[in-house]
């Protein structure tokens, strides 16, 4: 008698979201099974791995985190270029730290011009993240949406307090958004329902927020996993958005990542791989070596 392993088939898909436009575009999501379960269903797109670029010179980064970028760290265009040409990044994530109202508090118009310069210099899709400050982000991201009209950026984080303004601008100018609700599937669903009243679900990526290894990573794992289960098993169409995870910022603020180069890289790679196993579709990473490690693991 031969044994046949039972297979779990799901009649629904996680939505496929397109990042970027024209020849630059790439897709994430679209799967009808759990991560790496290619024996059970279809996984049409590899997970997206973005390298992070800051719009200001990094402050207080570990030497080994800065080392790969130290010659380009003062200019986001050069930094972006290096990430793509030298480190093989297929997606970039521009973090608008200059706009922090508690810091430099840069003006939205000025910031939008910087973003435009980066977009024009690139041949890969771009994620643009504000600082998570509802009022300021909404001003900045609306301006970015306008300045980069038609470029299909992924803008975020879009929160309960500013989703209407940002999503409206994203819709008008053809961008996708990252909808962020902290560590709670119920709140993720609530925000998606609110957004989908006027915003296309196939242009939403969800961010349940992330914690690094040793700092609550298990919670992030559970929440990503449950979002995917609600979407695929329970067929909840408000929970079928690809999942985004901002690993870079969380990992590199840990004591452990700042203790040694090897430890830092492994901290980031381990946290990343864990989230991919939970079902994350798009990650933001900082260190090129961590990117290389993850790429190698998922392509084998």
């Amino acid at each position, binding site marked *: 008698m031969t044994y046949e392993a039972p297979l779990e088939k799901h009649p629904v898909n996680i939505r496929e979201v397109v990042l970027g436009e024209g020849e630059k575009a790439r897709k994430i999501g679209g799967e009808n099974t759990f991560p790496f379960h290619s024996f059970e269903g279809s996984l049409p797109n590899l997970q997206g791995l973005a390298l992070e670029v800051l719009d200001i010179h990094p402050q207080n980064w570990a030497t080994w985190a800065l080392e790969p970028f130290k010659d380009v760290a003062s200019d986001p265009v050069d930094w972006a270029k290096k990430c793509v040409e030298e480190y093989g990044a297929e997606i970039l994530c521009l973090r608008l730290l200059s706009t922090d109202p508690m810091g430099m508090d840069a003006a939205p118009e000025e910031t939008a011009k910087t973003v435009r310069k980066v977009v024009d210099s690139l041949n890969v899709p771009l994620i643009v993240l504000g600082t998570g400050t509802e009022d300021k982000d909404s001003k900045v991201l609306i301006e970015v949406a306008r300045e980069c009209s038609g470029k299909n950026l992924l803008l975020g984080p879009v929160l309960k307090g500013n989703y209407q303004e940002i999503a409206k601008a994203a819709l008008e100018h053809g961008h996708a958004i990252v909808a962020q609700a902290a560590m709670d599937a119920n709140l993720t*669903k*609530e925000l998606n329902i609110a957004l989908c009243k006027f915003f296309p679900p196939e242009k939403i990526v969800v961010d349940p927020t992330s914690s690094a290894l040793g700092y609550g990573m298990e919670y992030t794992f559970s929440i990503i996993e449950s979002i995917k289960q609600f979407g695929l098993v329970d067929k909840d169409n408000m929970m079928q958005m690809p999942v985004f995870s901002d690993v870079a910022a969380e990992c590199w603020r840990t004591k452990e990542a700042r203790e040694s180069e090897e430890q830092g890289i492994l901290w980031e790679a381990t946290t990343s791989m864990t989230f991919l196993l939970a079902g994350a579709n798009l990650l933001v990473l900082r260190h090129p070596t961590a990117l290389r490690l993850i790429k190698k693991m998922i392509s084998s």
Partner: protein
Amino acid sequence: MILIGEDLNVMSDKISQAIKERNPEPIRECVEGQAKNGMDYLDLNVGPQKKDPAKTMAWLVKTVQEYTDLPLCLDTTNPIAMEEGLKISNKKALVNSASGAKESMETVMPLCKKYSADLVLSVINDAGLPSDADERAASILESLEVANQMGIENENIWIDPVLLPVGVDQRQVLSYMEFIQMIPDLAPGAKCVCGVSNLSYSAPKGLRGLLNRTFLVIISRYGQDAGIVSGFDDELIKLNRGEMPEIVELIHRAMDEEDMDISGLPSKEQEYVKTTQVLMGKTLYSNSWLEI
């Protein structure tokens, strides 16, 4: 179901102030209102009462008893206030509550025995709140044994399985339902009671009643004996009295049927069905569950 009106509660500013000022008028209004609406018991929630617990409870019980003959459910964690209330209750009171935590059993159970009161006994124990139906069963069996040995029979015990808000942990709502169906086997003769309004804590204010009412119908079908509810929710009271049989039937159908076509239903009926589907764990809860 036996309904216990929850509105005499120090969490309400009006009631809290009335107690502080020893002003009987707001108390009268609240008591008579709930009694008129058909509550079977009145819950007197005086909180922990750090200051003057005995005097406060005594005043409140006396005042309430001037306006109603209904039996009282004395709701305080302060044993001095509890004893004072028991001393002067005209009818057999319900003590709310003891848990299975050692200290709680040792202070509260003897009071019940001494004053021949009924006891609300929760499934919480020294380890906290049990996480599923089986753990709830194990915990309550242990506490029941202690109560029985002390001479408090099952017939005088109202088990509180502890209801968590659906917005906090939807699975706990399901294990609640599973557990109440086990009670007749676990504790023959005992009743089952819970704070129904706790279900909707953290839900949008205007929608809390809908969650509470739907849940009342669901657990009533599963054998729930009593609920602590708002004494001013007219629709809940009507549902409980069997005056809205078509809604009850609709909720039962939504409990049983996998996919229900609700497109032809009026909006109120649709809301009851959607709410049932959320409470039965068929769809993931969110605060905007009615909007999809």
